[in-house]
């Protein structure tokens, strides 16, 4: 069919360098390249290119340059190229536009408007190479106070989990990502002493040995759930919403449901796996309370129960209700949170930035005197260790990272996860592609990432004269805002730089 769309990217081949090894052709899963034997040249179908850069990275002679196509419609601040292209796509297909990864729109990134403090003179900075620096973090409900009896502490009856560093891998299901990617996350979390999250696609039996590093999800589709699924894990998480697509469910197409995925999800091979928008047993806060307690009963009160929501306008009131309903961990997933597939219109327009939601929820829970009843975990838009530090200083106990973890495995954020053709072998079930992620190397890369960020967080602690992460948690005096309006400073609960 004739399309009126223009190619988004340009493929330039330096013919002097090209040796016609055809690596690009084999590596491209989007069918950009071909070889014309009659004329002995490589040919390109640029309109298929997604700029994942797989070909450019693997080209042995650096002959390829993938860049933005510089075509232009008549410049128009209102009708940008993206709007025009999207509109034409819809006129041609009549469908909802899908996309992958987190919102890529230039909504204000508050992390970039927050600066961190350092010690000078009146309190000394601390050198993390010489002195202990503590990142150990516990997630779970904490009692309001401890009691001593006969010189001994009375036992605390609230379960918690221990993290070596306040960074966890966020929920990405087996099905949305490949087995090799999934198992790399499990192994890396286990090795480093943190947690990964199974997402809602079940939990393969052979990975249960990493149970103490595993958060299992109970989402609206209830895939792969039985009693062992909960009891083999360290934390159970009820997923209500996701930052990339608040208020809607998910859909794993049948063609991705292989034999192993079908076993893991407990659904027939080749059938669509559909997660409804709401849980059909949760239509209100008291329903949530019942599910939380059902899960606590099922796990004998041995592990914390987490509830994840997307960051929406009235998140503080909702979070307060969740804590009172018995949630031991609250997860907020922000506007820029990633996804394997979501309607573009939702991803880019629904929800609020995580920084504002985090600050508002932390403040509300403190005002209500219930902040210590639950841990607060945030996700959606964390890009580096400074973002982690700022999140903790705003009040988070820990963060989830999704996109950064996938980047460690190769992802270049081309946003085509929903096509199932990921050339980096991450968000695909095609065996030809999935073997591109080597779980040994993937594990090592992920552990490296956790280690590097943890070292940087220690440097940030040390420069502020603090040697334990708990002294930064909620310590908003460590932060100052820049380029923010008063209402933004007020919501974040921080002063402006120089104040």
């Amino acid at each position, binding site marked *: 069919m004739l399309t009126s769309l223009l190619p988004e990217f340009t493929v330039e081949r330096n013919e002097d360098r090209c040796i016609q090894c055809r690596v690009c052709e084999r590596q491209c899963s989007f069918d950009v390249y071909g070889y014309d034997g009659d004329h002995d040249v490589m040919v390109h179908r640029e309109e298929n290119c997604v700029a994942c850069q797989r070909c450019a990275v693997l080209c042995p002679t650096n002959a390829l340059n993938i860049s933005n196509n510089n075509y232009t419609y008549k410049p128009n601040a209102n009708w940008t190229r993206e709007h025009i292209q999207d509109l034409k796509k819809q006129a041609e297909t009549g469908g909802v536009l899908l996309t992958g990864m987190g919102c890529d729109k230039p909504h204000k990134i508050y992390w970039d408007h927050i600066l961190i403090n350092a*010690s000078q003179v009146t309190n000394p900075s601390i050198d993390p190479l010489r002195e202990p620096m503590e990142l150990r973090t516990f997630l779970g409900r904490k009692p309001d106070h*401890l009691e*001593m009896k006969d010189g001994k502490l009375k036992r*605390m009856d609230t379960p918690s989990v221990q993290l070596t560093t306040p960074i966890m891998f966020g929920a990405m299901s087996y099905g949305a990502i490949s087995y090799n990617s999934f198992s790399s996350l499990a192994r890396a979390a286990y090795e480093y002493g943190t947690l990964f999250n199974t997402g809602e696609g079940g939990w393969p039996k052979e990975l249960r040995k990493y149970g103490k590093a595993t958060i299992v999800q109970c989402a609206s589709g209830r895939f792969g759930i039985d009693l062992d699924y909960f009891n083999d894990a360290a934390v159970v998480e009820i997923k209500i919403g996701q930052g990339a697509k608040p208020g809607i469910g998910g859909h794993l197409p049948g063609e991705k449901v292989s034999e192993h995925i079908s076993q893991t999800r407990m659904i027939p091979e080749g059938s669509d796996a559909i997660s409804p928008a709401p849980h059909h047993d949760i239509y209100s806060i008291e329903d949530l309370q019942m599910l939380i307690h059902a899960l606590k009963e099922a796990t004998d009160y041995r592990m914390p129960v987490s509830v994840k929501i997307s960051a929406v306008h009235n998140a503080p009131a909702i979070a307060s209700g969740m804590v009172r309903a018995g949630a031991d961990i609250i997860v907020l997933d922000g506007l820029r949170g990633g996804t394997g597939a979501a309607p573009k219109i939702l991803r880019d327009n629904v929800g609020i930035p995580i920084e504002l939601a985090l600050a508002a929820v932390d403040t509300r829970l403190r005002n209500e005197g219930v902040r210590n009843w639950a841990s607060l975990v945030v996700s959606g838009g964390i890009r580096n260790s400074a973002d982690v530090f700022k999140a903790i200083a705003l009040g988070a106990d820990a963060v989830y990272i999704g996109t950064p973890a996938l980047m460690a495995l190769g992802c270049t954020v081309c946003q085509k996860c929903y096509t199932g053709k990921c050339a980096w072998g991450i968000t695909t079930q095609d065996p030809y592609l999935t073997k591109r992620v080597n779980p040994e190397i993937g594990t090592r890369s992920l552990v490296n990432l956790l280690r590097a960020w943890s070292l940087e967080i220690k440097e940030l602690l040390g420069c502020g004269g603090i040697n334990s992460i*708990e002294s930064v948690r909620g*310590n908003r*005096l460590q932060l100052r805002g820049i380029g923010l309006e008063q209402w933004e400073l007020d919501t974040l609960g921080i002063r402006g730089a120089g104040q």
Partner: protein
Amino acid sequence: MKDLSRTNNPYNDEKVISQCSIFGMMDTSGKLHSGKQVITAISNMHERGNGLGGGFAIYGCYPERAEDYALHIMYHTRASRDETEVYLKRFFEIRHSEEIPTFPTPAIKNPPDVFRYFVQPKMEEVHEIISDNDLVARRVFKINTSIDNAYVFSSGKDMGVFKGVGFPEQIAEFFGLEDYYGYIWTAHGRFPTNTQGWWGGAHPFSLLDWTVVHNGEISSYGANRRFLEMYGYVCTMHTDTEVVAYAVDLLARKHELPIETVMDIFSPPVWEQIDRLETQEREYFEALRKVYGPLLLNGPFAIIVAHHGEMVAHTDRIRLRPMVAGLSGDIVYTSSEESSIRLISPDLDRVWIPVGGHPVIARLKGIPGHDIVEGGKPVGGAEPLEVGN
């Protein structure tokens, strides 16, 4: 609500930074001593202060009215005194009241009027089950946060805080402290970096019979403060010392934790050390850090905390502020500098530098537990000095 931060924090800094000298002395036999020695000792550390704050806490100074709460109140205007006294008459039975005798000296400028009231809380108008201490603490907060130009700076029984703007020896002269007697004395000389100095902002900070003198800057202030606010404390003064005082009140008085545990919360061992402990001890520290982690005091500090029967000297866990302890018979000294101890007690049985994060606790004889303890271990005058344990 009145804004004390305007008085104590004229530039609206996020917190008032000050560094200091501190001194403590306790006779564990309960024998009373005049202020002479302590004044000599603290004035020997003159250079550690800058004349913008000095103060003393004395335990055992009102034996003839030991059953009454002694409220020390400073007034900056006559109207504030009238307003406060109406409040006091309504909510307290005032057994005795008087202006605290003062002896004007050239160094002390523009002092407030300082009065003391020996009182019992009235239970009329109270429609809940509440202890006397909680009720008095609530009334003190009420005066301090709602009556302009009036400030209660001491509210315990048989003890008193005396403080103001000046070097500590000038404050002592102003109040004539040489003629007061107590079995515990703590003292403070202050070096705020920029505040003009307000009488209420000097140390010791006090609530009921708990007092704190403090040298340091607590980098975890923001985290500590927000945790305490959750338990209803209003941090009006923007100083880290205020936060220490409230944390002691929450942990020791309200949560009824022993003082050793309070200090373990302020400066717990690092995880590497905790991981090597026996199960019971490990679980103890794990529980403390899980539940009270937000009250870990991070950054450099040395504090002397006192209440009836106990005096505790404590530093941060990597000991970024000085603290020396000395022992002479039944008397325990704690000080920022050794010279001050030696000046008043040349023949010490023992003098030592406590390990960072190991509190030195002096107890009145007759109270269960050893009289003098460091880091959980009894300390005796004749015992050899253990270093680096």
